[in-house]
């Protein structure tokens, strides 16, 4: 379990984290969701004892990250944003190296990483620098797992990795969770939020919301509709001008339109027809995490 209380951290003029308080329960996948510059990396460096907060305290399994950092380093596995691999070492050499610095060997802990490592084992003699993005990611995960950590901290493990590798990666994380590991992960991809047990939405160093993904989407207060039509670009502009208090954003194949108060959909359809949009579909929909994120961002006046 990780308890974070009143953490702040500034770099020069910029507040990377402002007054963050939250609890990360054990044996869960806890996701920090937010764009670049949200403060995810800084928070992870504080958790992994790589940095000292300006104020506040973090306890990891009861140990203080400032005073008892050595204890924490024994049972934490960390995978930084840039895959921390030696590109001039082979897959196997990388693993052996990380094993020895944690005082273990690849043979002894092979069973721990087998599910991840088996994907890349055929390439064990290949230099890490010559692996594809997805394979680098799996190797970095294997390296972070080699000493059987209780807590695994992964900073944007899926950034820049293609959709298939991302999917596989999340499947691996779920297997690890089953084994009782606490996994803290960050991602800029909102659709990955659903894969976490609990999520924290972060933006510009502030916590927008923390809860189970379902609870967050469930507490969405606005009335949300998916609108789709021929010319999306013209449609979105006309929707925005429809009445005050609406917001419209592109969401893949449809435009997500939200109202503060319950709208009259027939009136809207007539309005659009008058503006020359022929075949427009308007359907009420359930919000996604991304809808919630956008809504929190705008309501906190944060964009």
């Amino acid at each position, binding site marked *: 379990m990780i308890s974070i209380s009143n953490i702040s951290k500034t770099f020069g003029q910029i507040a990377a984290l402002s007054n963050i308080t939250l609890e990360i329960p054990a044996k869960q996948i806890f996701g920090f969701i937010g764009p670049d510059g949200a403060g995810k990396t800084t928070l992870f460096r504080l958790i992994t004892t790589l940095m000292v907060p300006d104020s506040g305290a973090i306890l990891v399994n009861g140990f203080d990250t400032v005073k008892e*950092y050595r204890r924490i380093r024994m049972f934490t596995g*960390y995978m930084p944003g840039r895959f921390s691999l030696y590109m*001039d070492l082979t897959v196997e050499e990388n693993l052996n190296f990380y094993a*020895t610095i944690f005082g273990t060997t690849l043979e002894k802990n092979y069973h721990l990483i087998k599910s991840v490592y088996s994907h890349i084992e055929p390439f064990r003699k290949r230099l890490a620098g010559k692996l594809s993005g997805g394979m680098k990611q799996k190797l970095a995960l294997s390296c972070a797992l080699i000493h059987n950590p209780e807590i695994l901290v992964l900073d944007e493990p899926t950034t820049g990795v293609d959709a298939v590798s991302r999917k596989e990666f999340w499947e691996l994380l779920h297997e690890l969770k089953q084994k009782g590991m606490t996994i803290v992960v960050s991602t800029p991809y909102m659709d990955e939020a659903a894969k976490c047990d609990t999520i924290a939405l972060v933006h510009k160093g502030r916590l927008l919301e923390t809860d189970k993904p379902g609870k967050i989407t469930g507490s969405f207060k606005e009335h949300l509709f998916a609108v789709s039509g021929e010319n999306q670009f013209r449609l979105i502009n006309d929707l925005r001008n429809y009445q005050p208090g609406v917001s419209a954003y592109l969401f893949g194949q449809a435009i997500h339109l939200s109202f503060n108060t319950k709208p009259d959909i027939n009136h809207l359809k007539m309005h659009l027809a008058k503006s020359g949009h022929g075949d427009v579909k308007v359907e009420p929909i359930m919000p996604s995490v991304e809808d919630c994120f956008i809504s929190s961002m705008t309501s906190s006046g944060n964009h």
Partner: protein
Amino acid sequence: MNNLAGFIKKEFIHILRDPRTLIILFGLPVVQILIFGFVIRNEIQDVKIAILDYSKDDVTREITNKILSSGFFVLSENLTENNDIEEIFREGKIREVVIFESQFARKLEREGKASVQVLADASDPNSASLVVNYTRGIIFDYLKKASKEAAQPLKINAEVRMMYNPGLKSAFMFVPGTMALILMLVSAMMTSISIAREKETGTMEVLLVSPLRPIHIIVGKVTPYILLSCINAVVIIALGYFVFGLPVKGSLVLLLAETVLFISLALSLGILISTMASNQQVAMFLSVFVLMLPTILLSGFIFPIENMPKILQWVTFIVPPRYFIEILRSIMLKGTGFFNIWQQTTVLIGMTLFFIILSAVKFKTRLE
């Protein structure tokens, strides 16, 4: 201990797998020594000389002819008086004067030995020693042939005098200087760059969050370079000896011990630089400006310290290679023992301790 061994192994892999590192480590010392050596040893050709022949007999004439027909020398003037020598050297017209004593042939025949004096302009000490050696070679070549014809062994006493720089002070300077430069380069620059690289690629983050202690990281980084630097030092000494005939007059053990001391100093400087540099570029930049330039310019390697302006002379006192070069010269060229260099050694030990403590304090167990 096991994790340290793993770390060192990894460092060796880095070094052995990177051709550029290998070139800097092993190609550079050899190339540098050879370049410095041959810049000094450039071929001599058409060197202008003067002859002062007090004897003017068959033998002196034959030797003169041999010298002039060798292709290395051209006769600029025949002198008649000793007093002309100073002037002709000062005018810079010639670089060497060969003086035969009077009654040269007769002395050689009767006593079996005669004297020839070779004077060279040693303001350019390197070429002076070359010119002199060539001249002596030609004279002894003649002597060998003449001895065969004569019944008894003949001897010509070739007395060499260097004008303006009698001790030939910088003739062999390049070996100690290059050694200091290369050890600085290999030890300090390569360590600082290799630590900075880990910061740049993000692997340092993982090393820091591991149970490895900073001392493990430092020792792990430094060990391969200590070993490689020692190999380099031996290679340089060997090249100096076999290629350029530079002897080690003093104790080889003492020489190596002092070298290890200097390597430790350079390594601690390298670690210090890496604590300040966040990426390889900065590490490189700092190494060049803080270490390389002073080693080349302010250590007495190329420019004699006594010729520098007073302020720069003071600056040289904080340039570690200055002491190391002095030590090397004493041991290699003069053959002095420890009691003559204990002061320099003490300074180096002090500096090493200072930098080790400073870099240990500055080496952080966290980022920032």
